[in-house]
């Protein structure tokens, strides 16, 4: 068992609790144990906090890292926004002594010190990493293959960019999540402008909902074109935008898509035999039933 401190984030436990449950249960079946990271705060959201005061962003993210340092475990997380904050702040502080000293000044007030002793991972990359888990292990864990389904992948901006501070190689034409999807027995499909933003990030959803939905709508058109049965992603915030967003698009623009949107961990849960109830799929805004009918 590889043990990690599990950073939950905000959206998964509050909006998609099934995603949280799926992460803990699916990972255990492939040799990853997620330990609770007690006392963790918001990551904090990179757009909302980072664009207003970087120092607050650094300090709060660093505090979350310190909690894991105290457990002597690397962090695993399931949200691209959290990844942007916690992975990137950890990366920056490891390479910038001046910033680290500043952050430690602040942390001293709560008797904490950032040491830079751990790494931060997205659970999806741990699933893909053959040293930790790997595609084969995922495939072996499947008891209910998602046969005859076409699934499109949304990677999400904060996972892949900025390229310089990531380690994913070609960030413009990635295929590794597709490999993880294929391991579940589904057929991954390609669509136009795959790497475009979901529309939510960078504070756009909060600041200008209509513009944000415009972007989402363009993605929905491209997804509809290739006849995907479901869209999967590795970010609850992207999930929220595609899921809630489809309802909002219907309200504002009068277009109905009805495309089920599932976090990769929810898909993996289904493929490993978890029930829709266990995954709380009834809390999704877009009805998931058409997809479930194909696989159950």
């Amino acid at each position, binding site marked *: 068992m590889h043990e990690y401190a599990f950073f939950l984030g905000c959206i998964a436990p509050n909006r998609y609790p099934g995603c949280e449950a799926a992460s803990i249960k699916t990972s255990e079946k492939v040799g990853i144990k997620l330990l609770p990271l007690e006392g963790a705060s918001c990551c904090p959201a990179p757009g909302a906090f980072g664009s207003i005061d970087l120092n607050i962003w650094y300090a709060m993210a660093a505090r979350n890292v310190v909690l894991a340092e105290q457990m002597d475990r690397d962090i695993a997380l399931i949200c691209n926004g959290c990844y942007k904050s916690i992975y990137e702040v950890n990366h920056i502080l490891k390479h910038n002594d001046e910033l680290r000293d500043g952050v430690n000044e602040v942390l001293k007030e709560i008797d904490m010190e950032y040491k830079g002793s751990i790494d931060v991972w997205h659970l999806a990359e741990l699933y893909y990493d053959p040293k930790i888990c790997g595609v084969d292990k995922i495939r072996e864990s499947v008891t209910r293959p998602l046969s005859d389904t076409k699934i499109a992948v949304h990677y999400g901006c904060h996972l892949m960019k900025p*390229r*310089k501070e990531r380690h994913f190689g*070609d*960030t*413009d*034409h990635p295929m590794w999540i597709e490999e993880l999807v294929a391991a579940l027995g589904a057929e991954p499909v*390609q*669509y*136009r*402008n795959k790497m475009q933003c979901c529309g939510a990030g960078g504070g756009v959803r909060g600041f200008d909902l209509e513009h944000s939905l415009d972007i989402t709508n363009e993605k929905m058109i491209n997804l509809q074109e290739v006849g995907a049965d479901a869209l999967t992603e590795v970010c609850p915030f992207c999930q929220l935008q595609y899921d809630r967003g489809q309802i909002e698009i219907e309200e504002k623009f009068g277009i109905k898509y009805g495309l089920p949107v599932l976090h990769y961990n929810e898909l993996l849960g289904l493929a490993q035999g978890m029930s829709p109830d266990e995954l709380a799929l009834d809390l999704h805004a877009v009805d998931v039933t058409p997809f479930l009918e194909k696989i159950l």
Partner: protein
Amino acid sequence: MAEKKEARIGVFVCHCGTNIAGSIDVEAVKEYARTLPNVVHADDYQYVCSTPGQTMITDAIKEHDLTGTVVAACSPRLHEPTFRMATKVGGLNPFRFEMANIREQNSWVHMHDREGATEKAKDAVRIAVAKASLLEDLIPKSVPVEHAAMVVGGGVAGMQAALDLGNAGIKTYLIERSPTIGGRMSQLDKTFPTLDCSQCILTPKMVDVGRNENIELMTYTEVAEVEGYIGNFEITLRKKARGVLTPDEAEARGIVGGGCNGCGDCVEVCPVIKGNEFEFEMAPRKAIYIYHPQVVPNLYTVDFNTCIKCGLCVEACGEKKAIDLEMVDELIKVKVGTAILATGYDLFPIENKTEWGYKKYENVITGLEFERLICASGPTGGHLVRPSDGETPKKVAFVLCAGSRDNTGVGKPYCSRFCCMYSLKHAHQIIEKIPGAQPYLLYMDIRSFGKMYEEFYYRIQDEGAKFIRGRVANILEDPVTKNLHVFTEDTLLQRPIDLEVDMVVLASAVQPTTGADAVRKLFGVSCSQDGWMLEAHPKLNPCGTTTAGVFLAGVCQGPKDIPDTVAQAEGAASAASIPIHRGEVELEPYFAQCNEELCAGCGMCVNLCPYSALALVEKDGRKVMEVTEAKCKGCGTCGGFCPGGAIHMQHFTTPQIVAQIDAFLLGGEQ
């Protein structure tokens, strides 16, 4: 050794107009010099480098019976030879001169601190005087120069250099690693701004190279090892197994009237098909091949990586017996006096800029691929077509500075210098060849700097090419039509743009060719930060290198277009021919000397020497170090290290350096 007599030093302080006098009190420095030990004369002058200034030095040497001279002026890189000559004319050994740099390292950088600059100048003069007091007579050595030269690389630069050397009566080895000479220029369709057919102007030169009786053309050959020094380079070449014999080689094997005559009978029967590198794999070739019909030498080559040795070609060749499928690499040693490196360039692997989708999207090509596709002798007979469907593209986007002037970490920070111009030419070519074609040039700046270049730029504007100033953010392919969406901001209109085109041509950055680094290191040539080979001086010695006798030509030294490449090649050929025509070269006497009585023969210095100038030899029954003076650069690595203090660095002796340090640290107190 001259009779030891008390040092008598003359100091000359230069005003350099106001260059020095503007921020240094020259009078004060001169007066200070007069107070220094061993100084018997000090003077100042407006321009010491002028004829009267030099006369001042020669006269003073005689008048004051000087044993050494010090000039406080500019950098020794500029006028050290001048003042050495003046010292010599005055009757002293020229190495009894020392220079204090009070301009580049003082007045120019301390313009606003006259007092501080003056004090610093006094320090510099004091240090120079301390060294000058201990200088010794040195006699430069001469070595004979082999009457032959080598040119590495058979592109237009190497060909031009070899032709110039050959025509000057010098035996020249032209080394090319591919099967034919011609280089990048032979892959181009037309040249800017004159729109000459590139092959038409190049092939006569290729033929000349093949026929020149002084040029020994060695294709499919690489440099394996370089030993020796200016005048006497011993170079080992690896003649790669080509599988095909020339008529001469056949005759040497006793096959009369045989050898390859370029008939091509072998190609027809060869069953192996592979991509032709010359066409960027857009056309096939066989395992036995020539790149194109105009190759020089007109000689086939077997690609042993793909050859299945079926022997059909051997049969087809028949009585000529030109093909030997068991051929192995051969090492050949040649001796030359000087060498020119002309290794050229490759394109930066533009697929690394993943946002533009090269190698992912079929209709995104590079500028060099465009050259082949638009060239009448290319794979499509000069019809520009989309690789995805063979259709003629109408709307074509040209992405300039693709990977050049790029500080993102993926790409090159420098300007590749010829992409603006060839992209303009490409725009012209599609307008000319394809009715209704519309080129879009997406640019940062158009750099049309050469003769008739700006006029060419205007011409292409008038022909209807559209210019959009903006860096391309990303390119997306329409999965159905395979058209491309180019996303950028028109920074003049301040508007984001989604431009749908049929084809994208990336004017990719250029970088030193693979293997250039290895060749550079064999010849002891440095490179600049960006990886290009380093010239001896960017302004005043652009063809030379810091390794005496090794010169540079063409893009291996930095991106340049054909006219600049040919000009540099002629310059390099001229520079490389000078030592050969003189017949001997004088070496600066800054070499190490071994005191054999002190040398313990430990051999540590031998491994430390960066120039392989040292060796352990047996003398009187024990091992001692010996210096090959011609190879030694006087860097002092060995001298500084020697545990026994047995190595004497001429002109930079330990007592001289200690005297300089003392003079500085003790502030003149002895």
